[in-house]
């Protein structure tokens, strides 16, 4: 509850929160089928119809309504982005904390594995995983999660190492606090700021990676819609039907803006040093 009030009181939180809420609403309506038209229905006569009163954002090459497809596409893209980032953040935090806490050999082994993963370009690694597991929504989620795990591991490990050497951790040891308590209350709690920033950035990247995978035909499978797939379908028709590119592109752009604003606000709200000045 306090977080909600904090977001509302924070200027960029209000804007970012409103954007994200609007997207969630659109995705929810899309899931319930409350779209202006059936997103899969092909209106043959109205192929490549420019935006007007009937088709708010025009139609595509097969005569499908772009606005309706966008609404279902948002749901699809967000599902992939949210879950993949959640998995990556969880795995990365656990691995990063483990590397920092156990140190020495464990740190070496874990971080070298992460280095190997980081050495591959993101899309190539995702391609490899999907090639092995076969395309589909859940394989995309897993692939993107694996690709972004090393980044979270690195983001967590560095600050965790320095926090581990701080005096309040030494103090905790002198009371005999358990490692679990030190890891959660002293290390993890102080990692909230870098993690929030990283999560908002990763959400934006994950949307783009999903778009990239769909573009290559390995993410969301047609005829289902996703923001990336719609963008990639538009590339040959850029001059004849620019709305096919503009609407998904702008949708992706605004969603990324929303995530970043909301992330900045969350970072401030979760910092006790900032709390007084906002509230």
């Amino acid at each position, binding site marked *: 509850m306090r977080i909600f009030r904090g977001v509302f009181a924070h200027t960029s939180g209000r804007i970012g929160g409103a954007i994200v809420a609007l997207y969630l609403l659109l995705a929810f309506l899309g899931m319930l089928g409350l779209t202006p038209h059936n997103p899969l229905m092909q209106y043959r006569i109205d192929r490549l119809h420019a935006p007007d009163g009937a088709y708010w954002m025009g139609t595509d090459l097969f005569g499908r309504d772009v606005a309706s497809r966008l609404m279902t596409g948002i749901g699809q893209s967000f599902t992939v982005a949210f879950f993949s980032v959640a998995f990556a953040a969880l795995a990365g935090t656990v691995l990063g904390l483990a590397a920092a806490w156990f140190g020495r050999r464990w740190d070496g082994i874990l971080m070298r594995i992460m280095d190997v993963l980081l050495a591959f370009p993101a899309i190539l690694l995702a391609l490899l995983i999907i090639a092995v597991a076969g395309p589909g929504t859940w394989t995309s989620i897993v692939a993107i999660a694996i690709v972004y795990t090393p980044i979270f591991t690195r983001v967590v490990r560095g600050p965790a190492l320095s926090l581990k050497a701080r005096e309040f951790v*030494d103090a905790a040891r002198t009371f005999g606090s358990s490692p679990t308590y030190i890891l959660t209350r002293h290390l993890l709690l102080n990692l909230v700021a870098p993690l929030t920033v990283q999560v908002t950035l990763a959400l934006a990247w994950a949307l783009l990676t999903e778009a990239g995978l769909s573009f290559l035909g390995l993410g969301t499978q047609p005829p289902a819609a996703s923001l990336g797939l719609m963008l990639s379908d538009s590339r040959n028709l850029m001059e004849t039907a620019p709305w096919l590119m503009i609407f998904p592109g702008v949708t992706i752009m605004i969603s990324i803006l929303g995530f970043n604003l909301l992330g900045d606000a969350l970072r401030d709200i979760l*910092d006790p040093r900032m709390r007084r000045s906002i509230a």
Partner: protein
Amino acid sequence: MIPLLSVCDLRVGFGRNPEANEVVRSVSFDLADGETLAIVGESGSGKSVTALSINRLVDFGGGRITGGSIKLRRTDNSIFDLTTAAEPQLTKIRGAEIGMIFQEPMTSLNPVLTIGTQIEESFRLHRGLTGRQATAAAKDALDRVRIPDAARRLKYTPNQLSGGMLQRVMIAIALACNPRLLIADEPTTALDVTVQAQIMALLAELKRETGMSMIFITHDIGLVAGIADKILVMQGGEAVEQGELNQILDNPQHPYTKHLLHAVPHFASGRATRADGRRESDRSTEPALKVDGLVVRFPVKSGLFGRATGAVHAVDGVDFDLMPGETLAIVGESGSGKSTTARAVLGLVRSTRGTFSARIRKTAAGQGALPVQMVFQNPYASLNPRLSIASILAEPVIANGGHVNAETRAKMTTLLKRVGLPENSLERYPHEFSGGQRQRLCIARALMLNPSVVVLDEAVSALDVSVQARVLELLVDLQREFGLAYLFISHDMAVVERIAHRIAVIYAGQIVEIGDATSVLSQPKHPYTKKLIAAVPTIDRRHERFELDTRQVPSLVRPLGFEPSPAKWDEFGPDHKVRVEA
């Protein structure tokens, strides 16, 4: 005669609206050739900002001079107003006419360049020297600040030199172009007492040699007695009092100056030790902490396979016992092993050998908890900024299997009240408290488990003098009330004199002198103890010349399997032992 520097009605502000956020308000002073002005004040008094305004370095920290004038008489006797000068002109004046040294010599030098290159840079920029000439000038500069073996040291990088040596290098750089004004911003605060005495002696000697003027900024009014001609006392951005050295020290007018002079711990050679809670002669009571033959060694590894080739003997056979209600001060310089001893007692570092036993108190709360608790030096680093005070105080209880129930909460509020913090503190966060209040919080946290021994590792060193005095009083009160035994680790003899019953002087990992505080402080027997005591700055020592001692601390790295010869002790009086040096 026109003064060298004349500051008139100086105002400095920060932020977007500097007029509204003034941190220095209407400061005026004159400085004649060869004079030394000491600016004294506590943190936040605006003393550093005043000094940084003179060479306009304050501009780089986001500050702006909002009013007043700073008139410098230049070499050609022209008067130059620094407040309105443009940056290119200032660059010529900085270094050439106004030199500056900072508090942290470790961070003021570039770690990847040799000190030779860094000294030469100053000669290159201001005197146009190059190549061999510059190197020769750099060597002379090092000789001038009494660095032995200067020619070889030029090739050293900063990490190869100690803090005191680096501060000398900084002074050499600042003096490279014979500035007529040297600004020293707390130049000895980060250094050990004996090194501090050396640097002060060096500055006094250089001042006599060159006839330069100096502005010396410090929080320690006791330190300025040896060097200053005039004192300016600052509080909250205003100059509350200024005048001649003797006048200020002997006959202060402003209440704040009186307060500062009263709060600063005066070292009285053992005459001001505590009279209460002395050790009784019969040894029937069981000690609260007994340390026997404590040894801490860190292996030194080298070669391809990381074989241990030697060991750092950080603590080398330390024994002492500590009675309930007694304070044992462990005194020594950085690297002497005093902190390592404390950390070993708490189990933060593993001891190589030796035993220690601590008496466990029979209380309901925190059964089986460590009977030894610790208060750390830095109150800003020892509290987790993300936890509320309630969570911070609850942690020791939770760690020992307790629960946050009504009893714990009651204990928290009593302790908070006892250490002098407001009752509504529980729901607040560490950043809302000042340094002194945070240290009180740390003390309250250490007392949550009813320890019998509290280790205070430089616990008051980071605090302003007036805050320091109040925290010391609190510690003494708590000791009487709860019968606590303190292991008080400090480098500051004057503070130690106020709180200790017994003193152990530690040098190179070994206790060299131990005994009753009065006896050790009034009749030090070991040469190292004498040196430490001689280095303590007091306001009684005015314009006293310090001996310049350039000896380095010996290396603690010993070959594998090295064992120190067993200690032989000379007894002086009932409770005063001194190690016999081989």
